[in-house]
C-alpha cells in the first residue's frame, strides 16, 4: 500500500486556520474599548508563551518551573534593541520580536545544554534553579536589567509608514496578532516533523527512542532551544506592548502562570494551552476585580484540576465531543443537573468563608460585601452560616456525585459496545 502524499492543506484545515485568522482580525472591531484591546494583546502574547511551554511539557515530557527565563531574556533583549534602534533607526519595530526570539534561542542553547542532561524530576528542579539564578542575577546587573524599576522604551520611532507607527493600541494589537498567528502556525507545523514526532517518542519512552537510533538528550535539547525561541518572541512582543520590562518577567510568578495556563488548558492537545491562556487571562482580570483573595481561588482551582481533571479543559471538551458525536450527550445531563445545586451551595459557603477570613486578616476599612450582602466579620453568626453552608453543600455533593460517575459509565459502555459491534 503506497502512501500518497497528502496535500499541505486539506479543506478542513484551511477552513480552521482561516477562521482563526478571521477571528483575530475581526475581534478588535467588535470589542473596541481600550481595556479590551489591551486584554487581547496580553492574551495573544500568553498564547505564544504557553504554546512554547507545552512544546516542553506536553510534547516532550519536560516539566519546567523556570520557563520565564527565556521569556524574560527575550523581553530584555527586545527592549534594549528598541532603545538602540530608536537612536539609529536601522530596523523596523515589527521585526524586533525576532531579536527577542533569537535571544531566547541563545538562552535555550546555554541553559538547555545543562538542563537536558537529566529528565523528569531532576529536570524540573534544574529548571527551577536556573529560573531563580536568572531572577537573582537580574538584580545584580542594573545596566542590563534596570534594577527595581526595569527598563523602558518607546515603540514609536521614526516616521509613520502608511500611517502606521505602532503608537495606538489597535496598531500594536495587529502586529501582535500577526506574530501570534505565525507562531501558532509554526509551532503546529513543528509537531508534524521528524523532530516533533521523536519528541513525542522520547516523552513516551526515552529508552525505546535510544534503541531506534535517537539520543534523547539531543531531542530534548533541540526542543528546549526551539521552545526558548518562541518564548523569546512572546517576551519581545510583551516588551513592545508595555514599552517596559522588569525583572518580574524572569521570575517565579511568570513561570508559574505559564505552567498553570498550559496545564489547565490541557497539555495533551495542541490547542489546549491556547484555551488555558485565554481562560486564565480572563479569569485573572474578572476574579481579581471582584475579590482580594483571587490568588487563593486560583490555587484551589489549579489543585482541583490536578486531582480531578489532569487532562485539562481540552480533554474534558474532547470527552464530551465524543458523547456528542455518538448522540449520547443528553444522557449525562440529568446527573449534571443533580449536582448543580450542591456545587452552588458549596461554592457559596466556601467563598463566604474565604472572603470573611481575608477581611479579618487584613483588617480592611471597607465593610465586606459577599454576593451583595454586607457582612460583619466580627460576629459569630456569619461564620457559622458559611461553615454550615459549605458542610451541607459538600455532603450533598458526596451523595449526588456517584450519579455522574454512573451516567458516564453507562454512556462509555454504550459507545464502546457500539464500536465493538
Amino acid at each position, binding site marked *: 500500500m503506497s502512501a500518497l502524499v497528502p496535500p499541505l492543506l486539506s479543506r478542513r484545515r484551511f477552513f480552521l486556520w482561516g477562521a482563526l485568522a478571521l477571528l483575530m482580525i475581526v475581534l478588535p472591531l467588535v470589542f473596541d474599548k481600550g481595556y479590551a484591546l489591551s486584554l487581547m494583546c496580553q492574551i495573544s502574547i500568553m498564547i505564544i508563551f504557553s504554546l512554547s511551554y507545552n512544546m516542553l*511539557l506536553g510534547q516532550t*515530557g519536560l*516539566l519546567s*518551573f523556570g520557563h520565564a527565563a527565556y521569556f524574560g531574556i527575550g523581553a530584555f533583549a527586545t527592549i534594549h534593541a528598541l532603545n538602540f534602534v530608536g537612536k539609529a533607526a536601522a530596523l523596523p519595530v515589527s521585526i524586533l520580536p525576532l531579536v527577542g526570539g533569537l535571544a531566547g534561542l541563545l538562552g535555550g542553547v546555554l541553559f538547555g545544554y*545543562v*538542563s537536558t*542532561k*537529566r529528565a*523528569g*524530576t*531532576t529536570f*524540573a*528542579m*534544574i529548571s*527551577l*534553579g*536556573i529560573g*531563580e*539564578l536568572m531572577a*537573582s*542575577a537580574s*538584580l*545584580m*546587573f542594573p*545596566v542590563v536589567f534596570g534594577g527595581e524599576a526595569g527598563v523602558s522604551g518607546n515603540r514609536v520611532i521614526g516616521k509613520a509608514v502608511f500611517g502606521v507607527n505602532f503608537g495606538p493600541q489597535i496598531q500594536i494589537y495587529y502586529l501582535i496578532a500577526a506574530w501570534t498567528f505565525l507562531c501558532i502556525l509554526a509551532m503546529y507545523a513543528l509537531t508534524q516533523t521528524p523532530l516533533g514526532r521523536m519528541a513525542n517518542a522520547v516523552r513516551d519512552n526515552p529508552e525505546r527512542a535510544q534503541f531506534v537510533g535517537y539520543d534523547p538528550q539531543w531531542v530534548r535539547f533541540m526542543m528546549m532551544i526551539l521552545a526558548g525561541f518562541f518564548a523569546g518572541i512572546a517576551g519581545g512582543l510583551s516588551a513592545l506592548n508595555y514599552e517596559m520590562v522588569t525583572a518580574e518577567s524572569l521570575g*517565579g510568578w511568570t513561570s*508559574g502562570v505559564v*505552567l498553570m495556563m498550559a*496545564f489547565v488548558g490541557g497539555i495533551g492537545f495542541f490547542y489546549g494551552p491556547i484555551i488555558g491562556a485565554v481562560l486564565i487571562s480572563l479569569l485573572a482580570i474578572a476574579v481579581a476585580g471582584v475579590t482580594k*483573595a483571587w*490568588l*487563593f481561588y*486560583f*490555587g*484551589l482551582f*489549579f*489543585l482541583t484540576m*490536578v*486531582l480531578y481533571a*489532569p487532562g485539562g479543559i481540552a480533554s474534558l471538551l474532547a470527552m464530551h465531543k465524543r458523547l456528542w458525536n455518538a448522540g449520547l450527550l443528553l444522557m449525562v445531563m440529568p446527573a449534571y443537573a443533580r449536582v448543580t445545586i450542591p456545587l452552588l451551595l458549596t461554592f457559596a459557603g466556601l467563598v463566604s468563608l*474565604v472572603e470573611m*477570613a*481575608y477581611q479579618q*486578616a*487584613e*483588617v480592611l476599612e471597607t465593610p465586606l460585601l459577599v454576593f451583595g450582602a454586607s457582612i460583619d466579620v466580627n460576629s459569630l453568626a456569619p461564620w457559622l452560616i458559611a461553615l454550615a453552608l459549605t458542610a451541607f453543600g459538600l455532603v450533598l455533593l458526596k451523595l449526588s456525585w456517584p450519579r455522574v460517575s454512573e451516567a458516564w459509565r453507562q454512556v462509555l459502555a454504550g459507545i464502546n459496545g457500539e464500536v465493538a459491534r
Partner: protein
Amino acid sequence: MEFFLISLLNGVTYGLLLFMLSSGLTLIFSMMGVLNFAHASFYMLGAYFAYQVSTYVGFMPALIVAPLLVGGLGMLIERYGLRKAHKFGHVAELLFTFGLSFLIEEVVHLIWGKAPVDYRIPEVLDGTLFTLFSTNFPIYKGFMMMVSVGMLVALYAGLTRTRIGLIIQAALSKPDMVEALGHNVPRIFMLVFGGGVAFAALAGVIGGNAFITEPGMATAVGSIVFVVVVVGGLGSLTGAFLASLLIGVVQTFAIGLNISITDVAALFGIELVASGVVARLTVTQLAPILPYLFMVAILIFRPRGLMGARES
C-alpha cells in the same frame, strides 16, 4: 580569624537548618518518588503554628506541638490529596505539590495576613552564649544547633535501630516486597510524608523566630533546598548533609566578604580591568546566586551529584 570562626559557626547553623529541610525532602523522595515541591511551605507552617501556639502556652510546648500538628496535616494531605494524584503519574504528583505550595502560601495570607508576624525568641534563650573576640554568639543559635543535631541523631537512630525504621529503610528500595511481607505500605508512606514535613516544620519552629516569619519565607528558602538535594545527589541523605553544610557555610562566608571580584582575582595574581561591571561586583552581591552556580557546576561536571547513585 574572628570573621572566619563566626562565619563558620553561623554557616554551620544555617547548614544544619538546610539539612533539617533537605533530609525530609530526601526521605520523601527516596521512599515515594515524589519531590515535595511544597516542602518549604511546611517549614513556613511550622513557624506560623509555633507562633500561634506560643501566644497561648509559650515557646517550649510549641516546639513539640507545632511539628506534630504539621505532621498530622501532612498525613491528611498525603492520604486525601497526594495519593490521588499518584494515580496520574509523576508529573501530576509534582504539579499537586506545586499547587499545594501555592495554596498554603495563600492560606497563610488568609489567616495571618501579608505582614510578618511577631514571632519572637523566648526571653530565656535571648542573650549571648559566648563572646568570640568582639562578636557575640547568641544563645539561640546554640539552641538551634542543639535541636538540629538532636533531630539528626534521632533520625539516624530511628532509621537504624527501631523496627519501624528498618521497615522504612526496606520500603525505600523495595516497597512491593515489604507490602508482600504484610506491612501496610500505604500507611508507611503516610507516616513518612507526615514525618518528613514534621522535620521541615521543626526547622520552621526554630528558624522562624531567628530569621523572619512572613508569607514569603517559603519561597526564599525553597529553591535553595532543591539546589541542596541536586548538589548532594537525589536520594542520598549523606549527600544532602554534605551539600547542606557546604552551601550553608559558603553562602554565609560569601555574604560577609565585602570584597570585589577584582580583589579575589588579585589574590590569584590575575589583574582585572577594574572598570568592568562584573569585576566591580562584590562577593556579597554574588552571595544570592552562589547556590545556583554551584548547582550548574555540579550538573556540568558531576551530574549525579556529590553522592547520588549513577543512573544505569
